[in-house]
């Protein structure tokens, strides 16, 4: 028998958590899985759509907390995110279609751990951390890169749920997000990119962040390249070198696959042109 609960508060929700729990927030993944044969008859379904405190965006100085059930559309409309993390606004605007953006949630898109998640590169760009709460009400935080183990797998424990995603404001940074899909809407990312750059007065790089999604099993941030670039000026040669290095790194990790024929040169092209645009 299927158990179904629709709690109104987080506390009430915690009571229902059990080993066979399945969460439904926007349902944009779960309903598709059910149609594809995922049998929920032995599960406990916890519907998170009626918990007001699980939705919304809070800003405290340089930290922004996006509650797990905030929809993509609400992220797009949020002023704080528009001000501080424009890359995330663009990323959420590129998700699916209006219907999906009205239903799908930021927590769901993190929890599903799809390599092609659109918000993920922007969240990682802002040092995103997932906040988890367990049945006892204890919370823990984990960086997104650690939380996502492989496609469809996270470190979320059976007695836990996602409470929110915390990100750092990148208000001073120049940011951009770019997505490649097979059409202009309702497209799963073939590749997606997020970048942010902060410069010193002398035009040298104070800080830079580069993230690429849909290229590897887990969205990847290129910390070593970022570190290498600090203090340098983005010359054409350097941009050339960086885009080559990043595409080679991806190839080294992914290995020669059929999709690499397309993805590797495109990563190089796009990193190159995004860095150039940021330099302008």
């Amino acid at each position, binding site marked *: 028998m299927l158990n179904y609960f629709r709690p109104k508060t987080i506390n009430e929700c915690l009571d229902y958590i059990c080993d066979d729990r399945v969460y439904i927030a926007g349902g944009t993944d779960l309903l598709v899985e059910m149609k594809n044969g995922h049998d929920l008859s032995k599960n406990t379904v916890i519907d998170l759509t009626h918990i007001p405190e699980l939705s919304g965006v809070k800003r405290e100085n340089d930290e922004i907390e996006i509650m797990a059930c905030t929809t993509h559309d609400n992220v797009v409309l949020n002023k704080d995110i528009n001000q501080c993390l424009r890359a995330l606004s663009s990323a959420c605007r590129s998700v699916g279609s209006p219907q999906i953006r009205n239903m799908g949630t930021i927590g769901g898109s993190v929890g599903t751990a799809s390599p092609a998640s659109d918000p993920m590169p922007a969240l990682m760009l802002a040092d995103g951390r997932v906040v988890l709460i367990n049945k006892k009400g204890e919370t823990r935080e984990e960086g997104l890169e650690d939380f996502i183990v492989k496609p469809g797998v996270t470190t979320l424990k059976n007695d836990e749920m996602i409470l929110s995603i915390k990100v750092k404001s990148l208000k001073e940074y120049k940011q951009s997000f770019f997505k*490649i899909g097979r*059409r202009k809407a309702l497209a799963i990312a073939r590749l997606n990119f997020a970048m942010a750059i902060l410069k010193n007065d002398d035009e040298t790089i104070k800080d830079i962040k580069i993230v690429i999604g849909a290229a590897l099993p887990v969205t990847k941030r290129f910390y070593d390249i970022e570190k290498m670039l600090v203090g340098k000026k983005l010359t054409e040669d350097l941009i050339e070198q960086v885009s080559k290095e990043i595409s080679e790194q991806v190839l080294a990790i992914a290995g020669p696959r059929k999709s690499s024929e397309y993805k590797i040169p495109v990563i190089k*092209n796009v990193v190159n042109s995004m860095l150039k645009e940021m330099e302008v």
Partner: protein
Amino acid sequence: MSLFEHNNNKYKVIGKDIKRIDALEKVKGTALYAADLYMDGMLYGGNVRIKEYPAKVTKIDTSLAKAIPGVVEIITCFDSRAKKHSWADYCYMTDEVKFCGDVVAIIAAESKKVLDQAIKSIKVEYELQKGVYTVEDALKEDAPIIREKGVGLVDGLPSREKKGNIFIDSYYPVRKGDVVEGFKNCDVIIEREYNVPFIDQAYIETEACLVYCDPKDGSITGESSAQNPFFTRRYLAEASGNTMSESRLIQRTLGGSFGGKEEGVGVQIGRAAILHKATGRPIKMVNSREESLMDSSKRHPFNFKYKIGATKEGKVLALEATLIDNCGAYNNQTQFMNWRSSVHSAGVYEIPNVKTDTFGVFTNNVHGGAMRGYSSPQVIFAQEQLMNELAKELGMDNVELRRKNIIRQNSRTATNQLITEEVILEEMMDELLNRSNYYNKKNEYEEFNKNSKSFKKGISLVTCFRGAGLGAEGIDANGAFVQATEDGSVIISTGLAENGQGLQTAFAQIAAEPLGITIDKIHFHSVDTHAIADSGMTVASRGTTMGAQSMKKAAERLALIIKEHVAKKFCTTVDKIDCKDNYYYVVDENFPSNYSNEKKVAFKDICNERMWGGEQLAVYEWFKPELNDYNHHTGQGKAFPTYTYNVCIAEVEVDINIGSVNVTKVTSGLDCGTVINPNTVRGQMFGGIVMGLGYAITEEIELNKGRILNDNFDSYILPTSMDIPEMDLVLFESITKEGTFGAKSVGEPSTEAVGAAIAGAVSHALNKNVDHLPCSLESILKYMD
């Protein structure tokens, strides 16, 4: 000038923007589609398939499924009640699975849920066999033979002397002049190869039917999403064992078809009929999207090999080509479609020497069938890309090369048909060149491309023509019934079907015109095979141009009957009577455009008088066109009574960093002969452009050993509203004595040139020969290597 003008007063109802008569129920959501039907005692029917093919089924274990409460009937291919082969090549059920859509057992259950459970519980044992999936492999000497009837190649041409995988009935040669001599006189000769993939019609409504026994008369009745109700009745009668007269097919509102709801809905209703016979209960079958993609016909993939030669001035002297299409495992379409391919294989050009060979090859894939264009989108893509390549080789402008070679009045086509009618193709080209600012844009884009590293822009013009109706492929005959009632309202019915194209409205206009009544007086009774005679299929864009001829005849005869009545009333002769806006009146010679108040009578009053006077108020008419004189062995003769001409200009912007193609504008011009309903024509053209865009950029059935990998619309990529370009439509009219009120085809011409035009624009942008579709991200990147 042949531009269509809105205020042409030649007609009363024809050529006017009449609102679609079937629009309201669709907009309100009250239209009943086959999947919306329910009946007391109804069972849900479903299919059992295997996931690898080809295979020989050795055992089917139904014991688990039978034990599920609510499972009413299971019929496997080994059951004595199983009917295997249909009249049209496809199988209702089979133990020799040749492709992904083949069914090994059918089940009827009390609910959809139980049905799905039962399907999963059936255990099928089978021996996998060696399959053949590509044309290249199927033509190899040692390829496994897929069909008994397949033949081999002798001296490069299909021959019954040898076994092989060629579908001989689909072989059509065209032999005009002498290509060997022709090529000798050419200054430039090029050879090119092109290929295109399987794509799907992707209608919103999947195939559905409800089969039951009509308690009134015992007829087995099928209500179905059938594009061709009479064809579907043939499957219903065959599978049930009933006579045609005791098999009734009612067409339900269609949610799109585009050629796809022909054989697929046929075998579906056959399976439902078998289950109905076994259970005695109503059976409903509705395909899921995945099943629809597996089981329904696709647009044929083609491998094209072309050789073309011209003088240095650009006069094309010879063309030689092989057009080979992938038929899939079963086929009842390629033998018709390839005839059309062969007729159009040399494009809309007058070429003195033509030698082409067109044939289909069996493989273990889903079958190719009809899809809006019936081979033309494929052939025009290859043919027009070839012309662009020839222009490049000659150092000539693309448009000028076309101008030098296009068919004009008194030209002879590839089949040596003398075109005696007016041809406005050059005028259309000039109008479109002008409207789209073609040459300025071409120069501007070429200048832009010199300096742009990431983005490249392109523009391309494509010309083509399309034989209207069936031509020498079949007999374009049809019947119609027009009955007036005592209150002056009129019921019309025809053997042709509304498939979403706007046929009801066009036919109502065609009936209203001679009858002098307004469109609101007409009720269109959609196809019920017990109510009207078989008028062939609603295909080949024949509905309005050929299929409405009987409707016009019937309405004209009824109008004459009414006029005689009125003439008698006013003691005058029939030629003095005219009709308009629901009135019949005596024409005042001094004021021919007006009618006098005294000498007029309402249509409804005449109808009322005649009804109570026991006079005829209904007319049934039949139309059979002149037969075309065509030799199928040489591909020479009169192929079609008339042709629709078409010019399309596409503009694109390609991001070569990522390989994406953005279609920015499409300008499309169509020679409609006579425009019956401008809004409907525009609707067809808008939709046709979007469909062509999908073919050009994103759509492709991905296959792995015959298995369809992208079996839903998350991975089978159709354009969305966000992908739609700016569209500029130009409607032309021309003079033809063929076609109802001079109307030509619209439905298929609206889409057939679009893919070619976009591919041409991409070629222009990249300065490369785009040789396959779709222009996907990956393929664009490869051109840039």
